[in-house]
């Protein structure tokens, strides 16, 4: 945990000076706030013995009223400036930390391999980068502003009580531990209740989410009342728990008030006794004693300050405790080491598109018992068209993911252009092995900005050409603004087929040696599908093409078809060969032939 916190604090970087300077100003503010009641006490004492206009500047007992007023004014100004600067630098430091942290997390995520990514769920990553960072920002701000200030206030005020009040300071020495213990008990109990109830609260909100997204199911099955009852009882339960927690928290106020009031009574009682027994009355005021009336009222102020800073300390404790979970989650991501890294002295060029799998075994997690792929062995020559077929979960995607080193093999080796993929520079390898993923994603922006992912410097001509090959030209042409047309988040303003074709165009623009289409034409009709394949073949003959498909029609003219079953290669051959010899292939063919064939 300490390491995680250290790691998070590393992101302070250029804001370190602000983070350091803030507590200094806070100390300044605290010092003024502590000293002021003392001076104010003197001030009031002096005012009370004023006798005429000249007595503003002269006094026998101490500092004249006029100067005291100036001193106080000066102190207020210092306190104000310290407060403003402290607040400002605290903001800069904490917001800066959060901003750096977000940027660092983003870069960290970008450095992750697929294996790393699979570990975290998408929604948890979003939470880590938003809510959790926000919690850290608040906790950090609290830290630099108050963690030093509050204990200092406590100590300052405590010292002042002894300076100004002599033995009266012991009132607080006795009270503080009792209050601290009381606060500790309250917080401990309340925290227990609240951590429990917050979990339930999250669950309740999840069920609301289910209802919002699944409203059609709820209504179709007429389950409105059922859901209402479910929600009601969950909500009632949470409410009860919340109230239980709040009842504990509500003890806070009486505890503090009792302490403050008790100290007041003790100060007045003891103070009166000390004054009456040690001082003498000079006709206007008590003088010469161990305590003056002004000091007595200053003591009351210090008492409140001591107990308030105690309360603040307890609040910080709660906040820090709450933010620890967030820090843990952020630290987890920061600590995660990318499993796939660039080798030393990497190969910077891929010359051909040949692919060789030599007895490859693969599992997603090292602790998993079952291999996702076992003994995969096949060889592809540069420029070939390879089809991959198999039912869901048979390992098709796993195989192709190894080529661009999205995952590393567990045993065996994968060669591209005769070299082990682990020897290549990652960027070089991935630029030369273009994958159109099963889950196609376009990013918000324009069609052009999305296509340029393939090649930053692509000209309009090149983009149009890629679109032509991918049969996406008509999509671009149908839009008024052509390549500049807007793409909404997740490409929600395009149909599935349109998205797939644009994704293929994007991949073509990379001008790779090997192109992998992972079920990327599923929403495209057979005719267009055929045209895409034709385009790839004719316009990019040198490029190795690996196509994973559900439809036999998409791959029947491949040079080789690999039939996958249960993580193993069931057969390799051409369409005709497989139709004759392979049962799975024949079965799939027959099913689909019933779909598309009986004319």
């Amino acid at each position, binding site marked *: 945990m300490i390491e995680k916190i250290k790691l998070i604090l590393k992101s302070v970087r250029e804001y370190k000076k602000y983070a350091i300077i803030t507590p200094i100003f806070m100390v300044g503010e605290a010092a003024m706030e502590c000293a002021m009641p003392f001076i104010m006490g003197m001030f009031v004492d002096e005012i009370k013995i004023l006798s005429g206009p000249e007595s503003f500047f002269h006094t026998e007992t101490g500092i004249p009223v006029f100067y005291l007023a100036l001193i106080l004014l000066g102190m207020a100004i210092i306190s104000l400036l310290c407060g403003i600067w402290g607040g400002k630098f605290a903001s800069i430091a904490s917001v800066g930390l959060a*901003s750096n942290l977000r940027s660092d997390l983003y870069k960290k995520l970008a450095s992750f391999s697929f294996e790393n990514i699979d570990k975290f769920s998408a929604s948890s990553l979003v939470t880590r980068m938003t809510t959790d960072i926000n919690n850290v920002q608040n906790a950090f701000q609290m830290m630099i502003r108050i963690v030093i200030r509050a204990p200092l206030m406590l100590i300052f005020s405590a010292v002042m009580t002894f300076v100004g009040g002599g033995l009266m300071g012991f009132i607080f020495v006795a009270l503080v531990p009792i209050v601290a213990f009381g606060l500790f008990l309250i917080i401990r109990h309340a925290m227990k209740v609240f951590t429990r109830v917050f979990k339930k609260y999250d669950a309740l909100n999840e069920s609301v989410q289910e209802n919002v997204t699944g409203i059609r199911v709820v209504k179709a099955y007429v389950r409105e009342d059922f859901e209402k009852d479910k929600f009601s009882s969950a909500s009632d339960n949470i409410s009860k728990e919340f109230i239980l927690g709040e009842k504990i928290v509500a003890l806070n106020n009486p505890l503090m008030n009792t302490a403050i009031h008790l100290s007041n009574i003790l100060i007045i009682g003891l103070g009166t006794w000390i004054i009456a027994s040690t001082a003498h009355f000079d006709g206007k005021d008590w003088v010469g004693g161990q305590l003056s009336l002004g000091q007595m009222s200053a003591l009351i102020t210090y008492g409140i300050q001591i107990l308030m800073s105690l309360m603040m300390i307890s609040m910080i404790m709660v906040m820090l405790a709450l933010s620890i979970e967030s820090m843990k989650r952020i630290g987890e991501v920061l600590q995660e080491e990318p499993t796939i890294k660039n080798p030393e002295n990497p190969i910077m060029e891929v010359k051909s598109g040949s692919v060789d799998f030599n007895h490859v075994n693969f599992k997603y997690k090292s602790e998993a018992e079952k291999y996702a792929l076992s003994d995969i062995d096949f060889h592809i020559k540069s420029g070939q068209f390879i089809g991959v077929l198999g039912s869901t979960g048979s390992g098709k995607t796993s195989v192709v993911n190894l080529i661009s080193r999205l995952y590393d093999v567990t045993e065996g080796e994968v060669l591209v252009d005769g070299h082990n993929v682990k020897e290549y520079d990652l960027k070089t390898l991935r630029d030369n092995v*273009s994958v159109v993923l099963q889950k196609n994603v376009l990013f918000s922006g324009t069609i052009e900005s999305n296509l340029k992912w393939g090649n930053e410097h692509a000209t309009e001509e090149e983009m149009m050409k890629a679109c032509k090959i991918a049969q996406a030209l008509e999509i671009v042409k149908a839009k008024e603004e052509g390549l500049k047309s807007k793409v909404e988040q997740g490409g929600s303003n395009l149909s599935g087929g349109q998205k797939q074709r644009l994704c293929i165009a994007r991949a073509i623009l990379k001008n790779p040696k090997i192109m992998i289409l992972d079920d990327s034409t599923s929403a495209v009709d057979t005719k267009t599908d055929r045209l895409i394949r034709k385009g790839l073949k004719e316009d990019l003959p040198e490029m190795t093409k690996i196509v994973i498909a559900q439809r036999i029609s998409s791959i029947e003219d491949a040079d080789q078809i690999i039939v996958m079953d249960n993580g193993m290669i069931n057969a390799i051959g051409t369409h005709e060969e497989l139709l004759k010899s392979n049962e799975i292939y024949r079965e799939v063919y027959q099913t689909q032939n019933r779909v598309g064939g009986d004319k």
Partner: protein
Amino acid sequence: MPPVRMRERGRAKKGTMKRILKQLFKLYPWQLILSLICLIFNVFGNISSSVFVSLATAALTEAGSKNVNPFIGTYPVTSTFGFTLYTNVTYLIIILGCIYIVGIFASWTWNRTMAIVTHKFLNEFRKKMFAHMEELPIKYFDTHAHGAIMSLYTNDIDTIRQFISQSLPNLIQTGLVSIFVFTIMMITSVWMTLVVVVGFIIMLAVVKGLGGKSSKFFIKQQIALGQVEGNIEESIKGLKVIKVFTHEEKSAEEFDKINDELKSYATTANIHGNIMMPVMGNIGNFLYILCALMGAFIYVFKWKNLSASGYDVISNPGQFAGMIALFLMMSRMFANNVNQFSQQVIFIVMGMAGASRCLDLIDEQKETDDGYVYLCNVKYHKDGTFEETSEHTHDYAWKYRHKDGTLEYRPLQGDIVLDQVDFSYDGNKLVLEDVSIYAHPGQKIAFVGATGAGKTTITNLINRFYDIADGKIRYDGININKIKKADLRKSLGMVLQDTNLFTGTVMENIRYGRLEATDEECIKAAKIANAHDFIIRLPEGYNTMLNGDGSNLSQGQRQLLSIARAAVADAPVMILDEATSSIDTRTERLVQKGTDQLMEGRTVFVIAHRLSTVQNSDAIMVLDHGHIIERGTHDDLIAQKGVYYNLYTGAFELE
């Protein structure tokens, strides 16, 4: 359909506070009154204790001047208000103690009561919102971003909590303290009060200035935050694409750009918030010094002091000391209160905006239902007559009461007719035009067409998720508007495009179809849907918990579960909307056996992407832009060599 934007963050509708307070008062009048009384006692206690503290010092001075023991015997002590008490320090401490005890008790009572009231109110409010939401028409969910609806239950409710539990008592407290303190100050000295009033005006100006700027940047910050969160979400969902295209650096650059923008707004907003406290606090300090000096001047220069009581305390040497101390204490209390309140301003603004959005949901028009025809289970006798029964049989009848009170039953057969139906989502653009469909009992009707052609819309009209604009839909000869909505939907078993599951066990999710179904019936349904095999391989079989929308299952497995759910519902009419789209062709063949069994003897509406699924339908409707352009059996349509033929032979694209 573009989602309607919810009310912008930071703006509340007028009258929101009034509505919230009214509801609050209606639900918990006594608790609120009790809290208010305790709050008054609390404030009064705080102030009067200061008065008694100053009285104690006055008594001490008095005892000195009279040269008596301050603790025993009584002697006259003149208070700063001009009245004289015969007392001593001991008595005063005892009174003070009593005031404190009352104050502590009052403060504990109102804190506790308000906390309880807050949570009870939020609970009621939340339940009311949820119950209302469940009754809203589908259209509401189409037109509002789901994230925004969700945030009503989290962020917005939370702002209401803050408002009721903190800002509201604080507002009242500030008001009370101001009144008390102002009165006391006026009684003492009008001149000195003037100093405080001027300070108060400056403070208000600061709150308005700083607070206004702060909330302006706060809103900007929220917008920037939204952008950053959007980018994060998009990047994380597309992380694999980023990696495949080695776009890491470029994406990080873009992210840094908007992240920097957020930083600059957030810093400014945060600074303004942070500065508020020291500025207000030190205005309080300045006020303190000025008041003291003012008092000193009045005393020293023997200015004519004005006071509400007419009694000039300040120029009175005996009381001057105690009076100054008291007045200063009052001015400090006043400043602290305004300072505390200034912290609440932003919460009040946010709370009202949040409440406003929640009330918008509650004000939405509920789904209307004027139906009076009910669905009931019936038991057939041997002679062909039937009677209503409360047990679950496989036979149903429609039941309605004539005006003369007689009940009429009509056996449910599953004859559904759409007669020249028009429909529009927004009242302008027709999505369906002149659609007529005749589904006779036991027939299988299929819809084929591109996305957006209106296939799903038709099924959504049959179950009245939406109401038609023109034309008629009859179910066994009854206009569906006359059928109770719940009963209409109960008679339609639906497997929807989106397979939404709920948190709970697999068994509970299947049972969602019919709550009374036994475990055996659920397992039987799972077998029909071909889901049994994968379910028993789950870690805990049927008792496996599904979390967050069944994310631990594959899309295909979820579809199988939702088919099982429909199977257990055992409704006389079925609607299958892309029920097997995510199941691979081999598995689909197995599921098909199950669904065939499910369809047997039932009227069925099928929407499918794969034409193989609909080939054996009694009638296939080819839809294009809301019109039925071809209809007939598979063979008819192939023979027509029209759109269906082209789709079938793969010449056209469905999307």
